[in-house]
């Protein structure tokens, strides 16, 4: 036993201590002091440990929805996300319409001029053909049903968009749910502007380099005559006619140069397969 050994050892220390602690068997003062110091130390350590654990947990919760090399598309773990594969780089003219397969659309042929996506809140519904092009540039488009989302709910959505780059917000008349989020090839429809999945979707897909076709593309508007954010082309609620460009892209032109949207030559009606197979993905 340790105690036994020490007995023989420290005679001089004993003598010194005897003077300090006069004739008492149990040095309660010392024991209490030691215990208090230990409890304090444990308390400080416990506090620090809790702080770090909380911070790590918060970071892990955020990181869960951040794309990485090992988790390229975190949105696949969000309940309700629809993922579709669309061919990119197919442009139509400002006068043309696309017969989109989804409402709101989140991929497919689109206007050569992209919608402004510099954290912009559109008060009125915008032509889908322009909005889809902005998705191709890495933005997230929050569409809402103007009959269902108003007031404080709408403010909640605005807060996520206003001044936040690669974000757009616009009403979408006739939307089957309150809110619908789009990024290129991804969609999530939710019933409330307060749904937690909205932020998860944004975190997972906004400028997610693994999931949008044109990494590095701009959200800036080109201006009047091209895309004027102060006077954007309006949403067309009518059904696309038989002359609309189908999802296959027949009648669209390959995007050869983003500086000259539309490729310069309007597609001649009747010709098919004007899209080049060498479109950049």
């Amino acid at each position, binding site marked *: 036993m340790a105690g036994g050994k020490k007995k023989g050892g420290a005679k001089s220390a004993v003598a010194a*201590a005897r003077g300090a602690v006069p004739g008492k068997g149990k040095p309660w003062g010392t024991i209490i002091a030691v215990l208090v110091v230990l409890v304090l130390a444990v308390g400080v350590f416990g506090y620090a440990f809790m702080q770090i654990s909380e911070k790590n947990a918060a970071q892990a919760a955020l990181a869960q929805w951040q794309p990485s090399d090992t988790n390229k598309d975190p949105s696949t773990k969000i309940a309700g996300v629809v993922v579709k594969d669309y061919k990119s780089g197919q442009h139509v003219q400002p006068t043309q319409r696309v017969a989109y397969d989804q409402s709101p659309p989140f991929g497919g042929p689109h206007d050569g001029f992209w919608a402004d996506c510099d954290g912009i809140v559109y008060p009125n519904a915008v032509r889908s053909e322009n909005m889809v092009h902005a998705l191709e540039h890495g933005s997230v488009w929050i569409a809402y049903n103007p009959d269902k989302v108003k007031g404080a709910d709408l403010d909640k959505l605005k807060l996520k968009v206003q001044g936040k780059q690669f974000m757009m917000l616009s009403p979408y008349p006739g939307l089957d749910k309150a809110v619908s989020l789009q990024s290129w090839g991804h969609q999530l429809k939710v019933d409330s502007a307060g749904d937690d999945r909205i932020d998860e979707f944004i975190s997972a897909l*906004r400028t997610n380099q693994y999931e949008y076709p044109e990494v590095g593309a701009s959200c800036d508007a080109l*201006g009047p005559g091209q895309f004027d954010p102060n006077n954007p082309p309006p949403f067309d609620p009518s059904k696309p006619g038989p002359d609309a460009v189908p999802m296959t892209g027949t009648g669209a032109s390959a995007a050869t140069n983003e500086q000259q949207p539309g490729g310069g030559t309007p597609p001649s009606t009747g010709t098919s397969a004007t899209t080049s197979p060498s479109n950049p993905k």
Partner: protein
Amino acid sequence: MTDELDEVAEEELPTGPVSATTRVLVLAAAAVAILLLGAAVGLLINLPGSGASAGNPGPGSIEVGFAQDMGVHHQQAVTMANWARDHTQSPEIRQLAFDIQSTQLDQQGRMRGWLMLWGQPEQSPTGRYMAWMAGPSDGMAGMPGMNGNQMPANGVDHMPGYATNAEISKLQSMTGPDMDTYFLQLMLRHHLGGAPMAQFAADHSNVPAVRVLAENILKSQGAEVDLIKQMLTARNAQPLPMN
């Protein structure tokens, strides 16, 4: 430990052994307490490079915060300069706008490249800005002024100099000399507002590339600030107050 305390209690001798054992116990307890406190300090202090994997700056670090927030700040300068370059009638404005647009786009590309290599998102996931300027310690981040500033631990929702949507929209609705002047006013405020972020990174980052870029931003934008002030004076216009 309790065994030893019990043993001490059992020793009825009022002499030596109790005191010797007590001394050992006190020393042992002191050692344990010191270790615990040391571990706590270690956990709380955000040592340079801590919270990082593979030596990369991690979330909340000065480097990641600077690259994310300055990236967003730069992006707006590029937007404004792009617009001015495309829509001005003035060769002088077009030249300045081209210079700002191309320089800041390049700088932004560097910052985005770092973030990509560090495995961090291009924009802060919290949606708030400049929290990385609050101080070095997350555990004690409630204390303001640790670096001589009053940045709240969770940052702010608006960066100085960053124009509102309404201001951008106004710029885009203007034409001619009016637009030129407003562009100069917005850009001057933008440059001045971004400077404290660059200064903080230049002063506090441990990553040379980050420091060098931050210092570069201060230098080149400092010269541009003087130029823009002259151009405003030539147009009989005043700078905007900081927002």
